[in-house]
C-alpha cells in the first residue's frame, strides 16, 4: 500500500510548513511566513483592449520574444531583428542545434541530484529531501534564466504543468527527477503520443495519481480520471463517469517497483499481470477485447492521443499560453487541425500557432506569470551575470512569495495560466518588492550580493535625469514608454533629487540613480505585460 504521509514526513507537519522550513533555512525567516497558498480563479481587471490606447506597442521582435521565452534579452532582440521572425522560430524549434554553451555541464556540477535515479535518491532518504527539492527548483530556474533554448524551456514548463506532479507528494521527490528528464524534457518538442505514453508509464505519475495500486479487485480511478480530464480530452471532452471507470480497469496492474520489495529496481515501471482486470472494457464507445493485458492501457492511450477532443483541449491551452486567455475559435481550430493532421507533432502544432494572425498581430494581452517575471528581470537587467553567489537562495525565495515554485503545485491541474489567477493586489505588491532586486540596499542588509547589475553600459554616458531615464527605458524595457508615463518618472526623480530634468550629473551620480529608475521601470505595467 501507499506509504502514509507520517512515514515519509515524520519530521514535517505539512508541505507548506516544509517549504517554510526550507525558506527559513535559507535565511529568509522574516519573509518565510508570507508564502502564498493555493486558491482558484481570480479577480478581473481592465481588459487587454485598453493596452494599445495607453501603452505604446512594442516591436514585432520584442512581442515574439516576450511570449516565446522567459523575458527579453537585448542580444536576442538583436538576433531576431537580423534573422527575421520565421527563421528565429525555426531555429528555436530545432532546439538541439541551438548552442547552449556549458549550460548542461554547469547544471550537472551545480545540481547533481537532478540527474540521479530513483533508487539512488531513495537511498539518501530522508536526509536528501530538502536538497532534492532545492536542486530541482534551482535547475528549472537556472535553465529558464540562462538557456538559449528559450522556446524549449517554455514548452518544458508547459508540459510540466500539463502533466503536473507535486515533488513533495510522498515518494515523488525520488521519482520526479527521472520523469523530468526522460518524459517531459525528452518529448517537450517531440510527439504528443510519445509524451503521453511516457507519462503513463512514468513511475512518478503512477505514484502521484495512485495508479500503482490500481488493482482488478479494487480499482483506483484517480489516474484514469485525470488522464481524461486533464491530460487528454479535457473536462468537456465528452466522456462519462462510466468511461472513467472503464479506463481505470484498463490501467489495473500498471504499477512500479516499490522500495520495500525491490530496492535496487525502485522507481521502475512494473506491469503486474496478476493485478490486471482481464475482462473486456468499453471505452468511449469502443470495445477493448478481453485478455489484452498491458495492451489495454496502450490502446486507450493511442485512442486518446489522436482524439479530436484532445487536439482541441491542447490547442486551447497552447493558445492560452502564447496568445490570450480567451483565444478566438478560428485560431484554436487551426492549431487543433495541425495537431490532428500531424498525428500530434508538437513542432507542427506550434508552427500553426506562431504563424496565425492572432499570434502575429497581438501582444500585451495578459500578465506574465511569476516564472517569466523573475527570469525576465534577470535577463533584462543582468544578461551577462553568472549563477548567483547565494546559491539560488534569492530565486527560491522570490518564487515562493510569487507563488510559482517549480514542481510545487499540489493538485494535478498544474499552475493556472489565466491572468485572473495571477493578477491581484497581493501579487502586484510582491512583484514590486522583487523589482527592488535592482535597488540593492534592500538586499545588501541581508548580506546577499545576488546579481551584479552593470549600469555603465546601459547608460552610455547619459548625464541628466532625462537622458538616464531614456537610456534605461531603451536598455531595460526595450519598448517605448508613453510621454505621460515618462513624464511621471521624471517628475518623481526631479522631486526626489531636487534638480531639473536637464541638470548635468556626474557619471557616478548617474550610476547611483540608475537602480532606482530600473526598479520603477520593472514595476510598471510595461514590464509585467506579455
Amino acid at each position, binding site marked *: 500500500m501507499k506509504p502514509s504521509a507520517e512515514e515519509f514526513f515524520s519530521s514535517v507537519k505539512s508541505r507548506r510548513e516544509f517549504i517554510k522550513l526550507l525558506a527559513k533555512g535559507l535565511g529568509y525567516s522574516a519573509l518565510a511566513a508570507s*508564502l502564498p497558498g493555493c*486558491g482558484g480563479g481570480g479577480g478581473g481587471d481592465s481588459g487587454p483592449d*485598453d493596452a494599445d490606447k495607453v501603452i505604446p506597442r512594442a516591436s514585432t521582435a520584442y512581442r515574439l520574444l516576450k511570449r516565446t521565452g522567459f523575458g527579453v534579452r537585448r542580444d536576442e532582440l538583436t538576433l531576431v531583428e537580423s534573422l527575421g521572425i520565421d527563421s528565429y522560430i525555426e531555429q528555436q524549434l530545432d532546439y538541439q542545434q541551438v548552442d547552449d554553451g556549458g549550460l548542461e555541464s554547469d547544471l550537472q556540477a551545480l545540481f547533481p541530484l537532478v540527474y540521479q535515479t530513483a533508487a539512488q535518491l531513495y537511498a539518501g532518504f530522508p536526509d536528501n529531501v530538502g536538497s532534492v527539492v532545492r536542486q530541482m527548483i534551482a535547475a528549472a530556474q537556472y535553465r529558464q534564466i540562462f538557456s538559449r533554448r528559450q522556446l524549449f524551456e517554455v514548452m518544458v514548463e508547459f508540459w510540466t504543468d500539463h502533466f503536473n506532479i507535486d515533488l513533495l507528494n510522498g515518494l515523488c521527490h525520488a521519482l520526479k527527477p527521472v520523469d523530468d528528464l526522460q518524459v517531459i524534457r525528452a518529448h517537450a518538442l517531440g510527439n504528443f503520443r510519445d509524451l503521453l505514453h511516457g507519462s503513463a508509464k512514468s513511475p512518478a505519475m503512477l505514484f502521484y495519481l495512485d495508479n500503482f495500486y490500481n488493482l482488478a479487485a479494487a480499482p483506483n480511478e484517480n489516474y484514469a480520471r485525470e488522464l481524461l480530464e486533464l491530460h487528454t480530452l479535457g473536462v468537456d471532452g465528452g466522456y462519462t463517469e462510466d468511461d472513467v471507470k472503464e479506463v481505470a480497469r484498463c490501467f489495473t496492474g500498471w504499477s512500479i517497483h516499490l522500495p520495500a520489495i525491490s530496492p535496487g529496481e525502485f522507481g521502475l515501471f512494473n506491469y503486474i499481470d496478476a493485478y490486471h482486470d482481464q475482462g473486456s472494457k468499453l471505452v468511449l464507445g469502443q470495445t477493448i477485447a478481453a485478455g489484452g493485458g498491458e495492451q489495454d492501457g496502450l490502446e486507450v492511450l493511442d485512442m486518446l492521443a489522436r482524439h479530436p477532443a484532445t487536439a482541441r483541449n491542447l490547442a486551447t491551452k497552447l493558445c492560452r499560453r502564447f496568445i490570450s486567455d480567451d483565444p478566438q475559435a478560428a485560431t484554436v481550430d487551426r492549431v487543433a487541425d495541425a495537431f490532428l493532421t500531424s498525428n500530434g507533432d508538437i513542432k507542427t502544432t506550434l508552427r500553426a500557432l506562431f504563424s496565425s494572425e492572432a499570434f502575429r498581430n497581438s501582444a500585451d494581452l495578459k500578465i506574465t506569470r511569476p516564472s517569466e517575471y523573475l527570469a525576465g528581470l534577470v535577463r533584462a537587467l543582468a544578461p551577462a551575470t553568472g549563477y548567483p553567489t547565494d546559491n539560488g537562495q534569492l530565486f527560491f525565495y522570490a518564487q515562493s512569495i510569487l507563488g510559482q515554485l517549480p514542481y510545487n503545485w499540489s493538485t494535478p491541474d498544474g499552475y493556472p495560466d489565466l491572468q485572473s489567477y495571477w493578477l491581484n493586489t497581493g501579487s502586484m*505588491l510582491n512583484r514590486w518588492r522583487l523589482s527592488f532586486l535592482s535597488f540593492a540596499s534592500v538586499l545588501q542588509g541581508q548580506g546577499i550580493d545576488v546579481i551584479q547589475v552593470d549600469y555603465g553600459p546601459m547608460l552610455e554616458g547619459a548625464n541628466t535625469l532625462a537622458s538616464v531615464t531614456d537610456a534605461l527605458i531603451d536598455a531595460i524595457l526595450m519598448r517605448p514608454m508613453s510621454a505621460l508615463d515618462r513624464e511621471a518618472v521624471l517628475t518623481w526623480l526631479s522631486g526626489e533629487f531636487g534638480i531639473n530634468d536637464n541638470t548635468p550629473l556626474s557619471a557616478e551620480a548617474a550610476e547611483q540613480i540608475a537602480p532606482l529608475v530600473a526598479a520603477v521601470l520593472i514595476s510598471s505595467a510595461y514590464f*509585467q505585460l506579455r
Partner: protein
Amino acid sequence: MAHDDTTAGRLPNQKDLLLCLFQRGAADGLNSLVPYGDNHYYDHRSVIALPPPGDADGTIDLDGFFALHPSLEPLKSLYDIGQLALVHATGMPHESRSHFDAQDLVEHGVISKPLPATGWLGRHLALSPPETDSAFRVLSISGNVPASLQGASAPLAISNLDDFGFDQDIIDAGYPDVLRNLYHQQVPFASSAVAALSALDELQAANLPSILPENGAIYPNGELGYKLQQAGQLIKSNLPVEVIFVDSGNWDHHESLPNNILRSLAELAAALRAFHTDMGNRMQNITLFVMTEFGRRVAENASAGTDHGSGSLAYALGGGVNGGQVVSDWPGLATPSLLMGEDLAITIDMRTLLSELLIKRLGGTDVSQVFPGFTGPTSANLFLSRS
C-alpha cells in the same frame, strides 16, 4: 486611507461580517459528522468507520443520530451554546466528480456550465454598495483571489497581512507615489495596483501586529490557525471589512483516511474555537460558514480512503446561527437510497443555505441574481433574522 474613528467601520445592525472557509479537496462529511444512527454507515465502511458514542475514543453524540468525530471535540461547546449548526447531505446538485469542475461550480454559484464570469460572493458584493471607499471591504487571506469573489470591485488577496508592505526606505524614496502615477486609469492592471497601494496605506494605519488575541484565545499552529488569527486582527482593527475568504487544504483523502482526516479536523476545530473565543461578543455580528466542493463516496476504497462523491457537510457558526442542531433531511445510506448507487444524496441544496445567509444575515441581496436559475427553497431554518 486611515480610519481614525470607530464609526467608520462596519455598521453593526445592517449586515454580518462573513468569514467563508473553503475545505479544498472534498472533505469526507460522513467521517466528520458520523450518522451512527444509520446502520448502513457501518456496512459501507467496515475499515474506516468511527464507533458510536460511548466508546473510549468514540464519537461525540449531538442528537442521538449524528455524532462528531473526536477531533472536532472543541466544537461541541459551541454547539451546546447554540452558536454552531451543522448541515448534512448538502451540496450542489450536479454530476461532476472533478475537484476543479465542482469547485468552479460552487464558487460561481451554478450547477452547470457555462460558468458566469463572476462568483456568488462577488455578485452579492456588487449588488450591495459599499459603505466606505476602503480597499478592505473584501479580502482573501491567500496568494490569489478565489473564484467566489470574482465580480467584487478590486477584491484583495493578501497571503500574510503582517508582511504586506514596503520597507521604510522604499516609501521614503517615493516609490508608492510614482507607482500610483504610472498605474493611472486605463493602464492594464491599474485597479489591482491602485487597490494594493490603498491597502498599504490602510494597513499601515491599522497596525495589526499590535492587536492581540482576546479572552485567552490560543490559535493552533499551522496555516489555518494563522489565517484565522489574522482575520481576527483585521476584524478588531475596525477596518470596514465585510467578507473574508479563507482556504483550508489537505482534504482529499483517497488513502489512509482515518489518520489523515484526524489532523485536518483537529486543526479546523481548534482554529474555529480560537476564532470564536477571540471574537467574544463580536460573534453576534459575524457568521462563519464552512463549505467543500462535494462529499466522498459512501463506501470506503481498498486503500482505507474514500473516492469522490456527492453530498457532504457544511458548518455555520455565529450569534446569528440557529445553532445547537444538525440540519438534515437524511436520505439514508441503504444502497438503493444512494445517488447513482454509491453517493450520499443531496437533500438540501447548498444554494438554499447560502440564500438564507444572504437574506437573513447579509442585508437581503436579491438571491435570484446571486444564484441565477435557482428556484429555492431559500431557507432551511439555519439562520436567525437580524432584528
